[in-house]
């Protein structure tokens, strides 16, 4: 069906319910979180840990990534093209490798209220490094941590003046499923282990 034909069939009204009349809210309210977000870095760490992320402040990112590789005895490591990763002097992957044990990636933002990291496909040069391996290490700059999702969402066009990237992902902890008897299992599709290193702004 053509667009004009499709749209011409849409009658538009506002709902009329006598028992429960619609209240018009002119200004969209902010989401108000019942928690202390004044120090976004510690709020991020608290919430990320609650969601199952292993989060720490990191002085030396190269050493930190090396420690995780050793801890997991990771043989195949892929990395993204994010600037935080480029600074490590690792090889940037050239094509997706489904068999890697560990992905090393950078985050565009951290969101304190939910302990979320944000991946940007354009900045990373792709999607696979943060998606395919069973474990990922995320490098997050301290000054990239915002209070809440609204701080990103409500200024989206300002933050991305040239339009949005092909894929923007908010990732909060390891992949989870409760589809078998509601028993929590991790890593069914996405990474089952998520390490976040918060690196100083100057790095």
């Amino acid at each position, binding site marked *: 069906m053509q667009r004009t034909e499709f749209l011409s069939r849409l009658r538009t009204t506002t709902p009329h319910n006598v028992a429960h009349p*619609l209240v018009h*809210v002119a200004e969209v309210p902010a989401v108000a*979180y019942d928690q202390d977000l004044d120090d976004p870095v510690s709020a991020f760490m608290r919430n990320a840990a609650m969601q199952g992320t292993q989060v720490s402040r990191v002085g030396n990112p190269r050493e930190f990534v090396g420690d995780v590789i050793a801890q997991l005895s990771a043989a195949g490591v892929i990395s993204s093209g994010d600037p935080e990763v480029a600074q490590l002097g690792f090889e940037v992957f050239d094509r997706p490798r489904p068999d890697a044990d560990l992905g090393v990636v950078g985050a565009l933002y951290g969101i304190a209220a939910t302990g979320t990291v944000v991946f940007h496909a354009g900045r990373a040069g792709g999607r696979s490094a943060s998606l395919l391996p069973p474990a990922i290490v995320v490098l997050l700059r301290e000054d990239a941590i915002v209070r809440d999702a609204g701080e990103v969402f409500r200024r989206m066009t300002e933050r991305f003046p040239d339009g949005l990237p092909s*894929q923007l992902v908010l990732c*909060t902890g390891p992949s989870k499923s409760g*589809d078998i008897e509601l028993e929590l*299992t991790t890593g*069914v599709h996405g990474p089952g282990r998520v390490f976040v290193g918060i690196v100083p702004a100057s790095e």
Partner: protein
Amino acid sequence: MSRSALRVRAAGAVDDGRLQLALQNATDRFALGRGLATMSVNWEELREAARSIRAGILSRLPEVLSQLADQVEARGGHVFWAADAAEANDYVASVARRTSTKLAVKSKSMASEEIHLNAALEAQGVEVVETDLGEWIIQLAGETPSHIIAPALHKNRHDVAELFSRIAGGDVSDVPAELCAFARERLREKFVNADLGITGVNFGVAETGTVITVTNEGNGRMVSSLPRTHVAIMGMERVVENWTQLDVLLALLTRAATGQPISVYVTAVTGPRRANEVDGPDEFHLVILDNGRSKILGTEFQEVLHCIRCGACLNVCPVYRQIGGHAYGSVYSGPIGAVLTPLLYDTPEAKELSGASSLCSACWQACPVKIPLQDMLLHLRTKKAPDARAAERVAWKAWASAWSSPRAYRASTRLAATAARMLPDAMGPKAWSEGRTRPRPPKGPSFRQRFERGEI
């Protein structure tokens, strides 16, 4: 009179002890999660705003959908406008043919369930694999979802182990973590080899031409990242104007669904991959689906299109909690299903669903966008009243006219009290009176009689 299809299905569910336990467990857990999560934000303020936001969008729907389509196309995506299920299925099938698709992977999508997309693709030889763990389980079992967000809640670990053992060609353990590991391995193979990825859409954001999918497992992200072609199917009402509205609706969605402050993955896709990206789909298609929704616009039921598919109304519904999703005989179950199904499909089976409610309004209280579902269920019952049998209509009319006159009212209550005292135990609600002492009207004068005598 023969029992209706709904009653037969419901009776089967009520007699299934294992299902009863699973339903109670799941709905209690989700409802508790929602209750706790509502305390973590300005819940009531956000609900009221969300209702107003959704109403505003529907009142400008042609403009908002146009903007979404323009933005998707500006980013190199394709938009298809599907009037009904057949048009949507034909389009996806044509994309599959053109891209020589042999294998398609899907992440959970109620819209694609609604149009029976899998069958349409399989009819032309495409293998379609559901990748949400719950959806995969019921696909292997050849069943339909029994809950919006927990489609396989009626299956226990032994059922799942049995299904997986069948495809493994050997015994698979029934430990959930091991079952998940098995699913990861099997489905990973499918993700990597699939030619086409099909997702639903939780929200389409008009301002930037972005489609949002929300998953906990990450399969939504896999499906929209690995195959060369990505098709997203969106019920036309699932659009928002901008990211500010999305902020509110997303905050409500995951809290209302499971009590999570946010789902593990929120994937925002804006067009196909760009030149500097090593992976991602080369083609992005957005199918905007009407399939009966435009008939609901402009009616007293319009607000049902505000729904963001969180499943909160199912978890609190005293009827759903007893009979489960399959008893509704529709893709959409619970209070939302009982309203939406008869509006989408004008069949006698769909019409009787409005009876599957106690009108207690727990659904409305739980709904994150405040849809007055109980009012709609009542309207639907009013609409089907003329279909009642003649004898039933006469009986109701007689009752209405009797109780409109004080004398006839008094006579009827006296008669009822006498009859109730004389009624033998064998008659009346048998199952109910098992284990209960049936109340009897007290002997002696009634309240009215004593009031008239001046005793009260």
